[in-house]
């Protein structure tokens, strides 16, 4: 996460926040391994491990390899490692959603179709934004990823709420953590881009500090969620065929439509002058 903007010349307070964040990540990894949750969440465990590897790589680069040198190689290494963690983040989130929605095949199938449509719209918006801000292309791309990611996760969570799917609190916290961090990244990138200019010397440390801090908060929430072994999956409660749904659902919809029409007539009747 420290590679977010630049890997050189971190002020002391940024290093402290970073150290706290790394400690929190180590705690999350330890909980995943000790409580046996890594078996259930292999991608999530990989994500946490990859973040730690990224932190170690950047630390070595910063301290021993190119200390004080803000070279293009540093930037490339930082952003490539960031891209890798973002890909694994998407996989870890899908893994969590899959665990939650596994017994609900119909909802899973419907949500995927809707999500593909919504994500396409967001991606188009991001591409247009990136083309308009070529100087800020990497920042815009990073924000675009988080925008797409946060929108997708929230759409999933709305689905889960709408269909009253029971989600164990631990999964809620893990998904919420991912989404919170993405929302914060969108806000931080936007505010920084709007308020500061590129060559402002205070821009990068503040940017790094708030970004790492929001990530550290997420780690603490995850540690709380993972302090106990994850719940055992609920047995499948699906009905065996879709005939129930396709038999009853149109009847309900027709009656609800009729009810709405009657309500509309009631409304119109009231609108008439007495």
């Amino acid at each position, binding site marked *: 996460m420290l590679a977010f903007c630049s890997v050189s010349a971190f002020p002391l307070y940024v290093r402290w926040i970073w150290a706290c964040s790394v400690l929190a990540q180590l705690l999350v990894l330890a909980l995943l391994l000790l409580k046996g949750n890594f078996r259930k969440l292999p991608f999530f465990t990989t994500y946490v491990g990859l973040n730690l590897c990224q932190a170690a790589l950047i630390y070595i680069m910063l301290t021993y390899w190119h200390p004080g040198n803000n070279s293009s190689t540093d930037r490339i290494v930082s952003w490539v490692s960031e891209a890798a963690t973002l890909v694994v983040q998407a996989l870890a989130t899908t893994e969590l959603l899959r665990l939650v929605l596994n017994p*609900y*095949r*119909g*909802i899973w*199938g*419907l949500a995927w179709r809707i999500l593909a449509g919504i994500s396409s719209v967001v991606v188009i918006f991001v591409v247009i*934004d990136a083309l308009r801000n070529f100087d800020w292309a990497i920042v815009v791309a990073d*924000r675009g990823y988080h*925008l797409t990611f*946060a*929108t997708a996760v*929230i759409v999933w*969570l*709305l689905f*889960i*709420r*709408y*269909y*009253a*799917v029971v989600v164990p609190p631990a999964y*809620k916290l893990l998904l*919420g953590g991912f*989404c*919170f961090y993405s*929302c914060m990244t*969108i*806000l931080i990138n*936007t*505010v920084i*881009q*709007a308020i500061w200019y590129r060559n402002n010397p205070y821009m990068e440390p503040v940017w790094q500090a708030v970004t790492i801090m929001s990530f550290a908060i997420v780690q603490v929430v995850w540690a709380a969620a993972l302090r106990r072994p994850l719940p055992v999956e609920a047995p*499948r*409660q*699906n*009905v*065996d*065929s*879709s005939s*129930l*749904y*396709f*038999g*009853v*659902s*149109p*009847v*309900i*919809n027709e*009656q*609800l*439509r009729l*009810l709405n029409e*009657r*309500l509309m*007539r*009631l*409304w119109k*009747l*009231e609108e008439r002058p*007495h």
Partner: protein
Amino acid sequence: MSSVLLLLGFVGVLLLALLAWVLRDPRKFANPDDDLASKEELGRHHVTYFPQVRQAIGAEDFAFLASRGLPKLTNRVRKERRRIALAYLACLRADFLKLWRLARVIASMSPQVGAAQEFARLRLGLAFSLRYEIIRIKFFFGIAPLPELGSLSEVVSRLSVRLETAMKNLGESAALASKLTSSLHDGRGLDTP
């Protein structure tokens, strides 16, 4: 600041607010007035009380009181009976929400779900809630259009009967029954839309 940045900032805040809303426990924040569980346990539908409500807000009583030259009493009775009608309207909504939620539970358990059906029901639910609120406000200030209220009750009643028959036919699925019971009794989904 460009308009795109403003929009992005707004979207960021909106997403955070939405996240907080979707992550909260609906049972913790459920309105006690909307708690259908206790009403459902009674195993009866509010539409069955329509004849009594019809009598309570019927024009005959008001006409009689007015003809006896009791304007104050007429107004008081009208107010009280309007309150009864409003409570009845709220109960109709409760019946509607119960059925709406039942449909969602059926959808969540089906191995295949039709997007068109789901969107249609979502749209109907939203439209019903909006109209209900408008009518409730109008009902509060205006005169009760009784025949229409009656037809509204009939629709809810018919829908309940149909659903009960459908569910009876599916009684062999123990998992379905347990899921429906738990979903209907834990009060979830009442705050949607």
